[in-house]
């Protein structure tokens, strides 16, 4: 990141000469054009990231437990990390109820949200995408309808589901019709977790469905036709043809959603406020900041490493090929149309 920034010849700033043909000076021009972005990203992402690591190696100011005196801080070594990972508050184990003690419960509940939400979203998203991957009247209406949950701010979504899940709310009335007792959706350990998962799945399945739909539309129709002629069943067609052909967009969608849920904050913070053991890792960071940002920095660095490692696994072993080479300038119209399947399809169906 920083290497690329420093090689950008910003200081010279001269434009490439016109006389050297059309492609001369592209290298320099390119670096010049991306330089401001790299400077911005270095300033607002790389610098805070490095600073967080630096802060995480220092002590929070506070009372020294051994001497009872107020200490300003100083080097902490890795004690802020062992505080979270090994549950050490100074020399002793963190007492129950402290933020340090909540680390593993926050980690497990965050991973629980991630796995359950993404699996449900993948299944439902696939089904939604298959439904929409047909020619039908009213395509615009359906597409607009499923974009509504995506457009609503998550904070509003949380309040909306808080109302739906209120004790006297519509959710308890609806489950009452099928004979289920009313649930305490914001404080019961299981109901609260599923309240968050339901709200998250509602909001983000459309995004998943649209990504998968865009992938499905890359599959040429005659492939299905051939399968049908060869007597393949619908299930065989789905497993043997559809899935392998949409694997890459599917994995990209799963990667984006996985990383998104791993940093979940808005829904548990507003909908349950951590009730029923739903305090996520991100919520723990925000709570910790008020009590000392050195150990908060250690926790946020742990989250960053966890997310970076997950992304690495997906890209390395999961086939989530995210940095795909953009089409070269030589590409002609038909390929460009394939490159943007949704737009191409939308214009051709004339909905």
């Amino acid at each position, binding site marked *: 990141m920083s290497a*690329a920034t420093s*090689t950008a010849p910003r200081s010279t700033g001269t434009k490439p000469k*016109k006389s050297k043909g059309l492609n001369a000076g592209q*290298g320099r021009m390119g670096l010049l*054009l*991306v330089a401001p*972005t*790299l400077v911005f*990203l270095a300033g*607002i*992402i790389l610098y*805070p990231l490095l600073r*967080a690591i630096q*802060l995480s190696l220092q002590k929070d100011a506070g009372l020294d437990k051994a001497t009872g005196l107020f200490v300003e801080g100083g080097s902490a070594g890795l004690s802020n990390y062992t505080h979270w990972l090994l549950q050490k508050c100074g020399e002793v184990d963190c007492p129950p109820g402290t933020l340090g003690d909540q680390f593993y419960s926050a980690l497990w509940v965050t991973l629980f949200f991630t796995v359950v939400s993404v699996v449900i979203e993948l299944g439902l998203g696939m089904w939604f995408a298959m439904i929409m991957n047909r*020619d039908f*009247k*009213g395509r*615009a209406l*359906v597409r607009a309808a*499923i974009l*509504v949950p995506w*457009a*609503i*701010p998550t*904070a509003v979504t949380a*309040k*909306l589901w808080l*109302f739906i899940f209120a004790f*006297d*709310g*519509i959710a308890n*009335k609806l489950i009452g019709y099928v004979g289920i007792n009313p649930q305490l959706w914001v404080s019961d350990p299981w109901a609260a977790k599923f309240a968050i998962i339901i709200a998250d799945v509602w909001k983000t*399945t*459309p*995004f998943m469905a649209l990504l998968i739909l*865009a992938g499905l539309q*890359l599959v*040429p129709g005659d492939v*299905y036709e051939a399968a*049908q002629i060869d007597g393949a069943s619908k299930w065989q067609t789905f497993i043997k043809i559809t899935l392998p052909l949409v694997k890459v*967009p599917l994995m990209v969608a799963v990667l984006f959603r996985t990383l998104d849920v791993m940093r979940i904050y808005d829904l548990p*913070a507003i909908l349950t406020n951590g009730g029923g053991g739903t305090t996520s*890792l*991100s919520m723990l960071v*925000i709570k910790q*900041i008020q009590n000392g*940002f050195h150990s908060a920095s250690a926790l*946020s660095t742990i*989250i960053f490493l966890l*997310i970076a490692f997950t992304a690495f696994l997906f890209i390395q072993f999961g086939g989530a090929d995210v*940095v795909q080479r953009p*089409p070269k*300038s030589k590409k002609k*119209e038909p*390929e*460009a149309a*394939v490159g943007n*399947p949704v737009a191409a399809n*939308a214009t*051709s169906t004339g909905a």
Partner: protein
Amino acid sequence: MTATTTAPPTSGRTEAQEIHFKSDRAAKIRMYLGLSALVIWGLAPFYWMVVTAFRNVGYTFDSTPWPTHVTLDNFTTAFSTDRGNHFGAALVHSVIIGILTTAVALLVGVSASYALARLDFPGKYAVLGVILGASMFPGVALVSPLFQLFSNFGWLTGANYQALIIPNISFALPLTIYTLTAFLSEMPWELEESARIDGCTPGQAFRKIMLPLAAPGLFTTAILAFISSWNEFLLASLFSTKQTQTVTVAIANFTGAQPHQEPYTAVMAAGTIVTVPLIIMVLIFQRAIVSGLTAGGVKG
């Protein structure tokens, strides 16, 4: 009947589907049932929010599925400052923050997107990787250093919009570049080559020929960046003050007549006000938004 009205010349799929549909009416009925399920999925909770927003506060938990006890009082309550809520001011703050975030992200992002879509230069794929990494970056990893930095600058009191705009750029800029690069790489760049053969510099060819063509893509990108800033909550809840409080923070902290009493109908009214402009934008620009959302993830 369907075939005559919807047959797209380019698809090649419709012929097979035509046969399929004629032979299997049940499949068609199932398809429309599925589509109805999709529409209900998207609209039912939103519908419930709007119905509640217009319902008299005394009938908050009335479960009649259509509007009853219709009133505008909840909107008055939402904008009222009597209970220490400043929703009206928060709307203004969110618009200011959203517009400035979008403007900075677009100004900085356009040139990078152009370079990534059009030019070959050393380290191009490293830059793409950096931008992608930035777009997956967890915002929570920024909060503690920025919290310390901003409080040293004295930005965590008063009307310091930059304390909200700067962190917002950290996700709006990668999003902008990602979406815009996908848009720009699909434009008819032959026109630019013609312009350059006619004697334009690369800059002139871009400004005079390509920029007008790129306007829809720019506009969609701007909408996506604005929505991402408008919807942001974590950073805003930490870095905003009374003078910069955003709508998401205002709605999350809405207080009722009594403490611990959630003013559901007023919150639903506020939620409706915050959401309806976005829904209108989605209705108008849905096609472009969908291609913008999926452009980065799926490249042929």
